[in-house]
């Protein structure tokens, strides 16, 4: 018996339908993998920090921020530091992200005792995976 004839005997319509759905799902997945393969993904980690809203809780200033890794490489233990300078007063706050994968975002909060005017948030260091 030919291969197709064999399949025709063994497979019901319902089974063909689920095979069809499965193949379209797999086509999307395989298509994406091929696309990633073809598009070069070797940019080193690079971070952008965006300052968000500030709220006051019990006399402290909570500053939201978002860190985005626009490279392809993952950054581990990414250290973010924020500093404000008002006259003689200099204040720093920092946090560490365990993991910022390439092309993704994480959110964090820095806390200050003074109003965070002139706040500068920078990424100080990260470890290579």
């Amino acid at each position, binding site marked *: 018996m030919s291969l197709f004839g064999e399949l025709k005997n063994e497979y019901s319509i319902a089974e063909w339908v689920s095979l069809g759905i499965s193949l379209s799902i797999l086509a999307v997945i395989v298509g994406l993998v091929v696309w*990633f393969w073809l598009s070069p993904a070797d940019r080193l980690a690079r971070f952008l920090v965006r300052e968000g809203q500030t709220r006051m809780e019990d006399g402290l200033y909570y500053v939201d921020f978002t860190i985005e890794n626009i490279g392809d490489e993952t950054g581990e233990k990414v250290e973010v530091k924020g500093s404000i300078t008002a006259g003689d007063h200099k204040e720093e706050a920092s946090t560490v992200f365990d993991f910022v994968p390439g092309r993704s975002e994480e959110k964090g909060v820095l806390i200050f005792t003074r109003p965070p005017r002139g706040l500068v948030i920078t990424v100080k260091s990260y470890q290579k995976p």
Partner: protein
Amino acid sequence: MTSGKKNSQWLEELDDVLRAVSGAFLFGIPLLYTMEVWWIGSQVDALDMSLSLAATFILLIILDYGAGFRMNKKYVWSVSILDSLVALAVAIVCAALSLKIIGYLPSDLGLENMLGRITMEAIPFGIGVGISDHLVEGQKAQGEDPNRQQERQRGEEERTAEGKLHGTLVDMGATALGAVIVAFAIAPTEEILFIASRQSSLGILIIMSVSLVISYIIVFEASFVSESKRMQQRGIFQHPVFETVNSYLVSLMVSLFMLWLFKILGSDQSYQEWLNYVIVLGFPASIGGAAGRLAI
């Protein structure tokens, strides 16, 4: 082809696919609650993804020779390859959905990382699909024997209220045992805290609903044979929905006990945290519990 035959053909296919889903969750869930798998998924490149997909597919073809997810099929190699494609798709969909539910497939993750996590998580889910015929069909042979079924039916009619209570207790015991077997290894790990801390109230409700649906699928839909058998089984809560809810509540109690035992829950936590941790551990526990019911 008569419409009745057509109908049964669709039901049979639904039965097969739901059996595959049951196997995927039963085997895959311990590795869903493993953070290393999430992190590795963020580090793999396209080559690793292709290799893991190919490896899972080959594994499924091999497993299909001995087990697979379809019932009552004679082995034909060409059919086996097509079945393995379906199995791979089921594994990928289950892996993606469950990662999404526990909050480790956020939309800001980036497409490549998402795909990396899904393909890595699809390996254990795929193995589960590949052996699902064995995992969830332990009682197939007994259920198919018409004489035994008749005997059982006669037995049911003779049962007293006391017998029914006994049956319910046996069911609950089996559920608790299954829940412990699957969830005990997960209970003391940090993943419970990680997953719970990411959940909103809606997220917790979704985890609850999915736990109930998957338990229902495992106990009642995995095999229509088992289902008709369970429908006749002794017990106070004979309706499938009651049985599933009962099984879920037992699994939650077991989760609560394990979290307390491992000192993850204590008096310094809020009620909200208690609830979240119990529901998050309740997901694997209820899947184990449902499988435990199936085994008796």
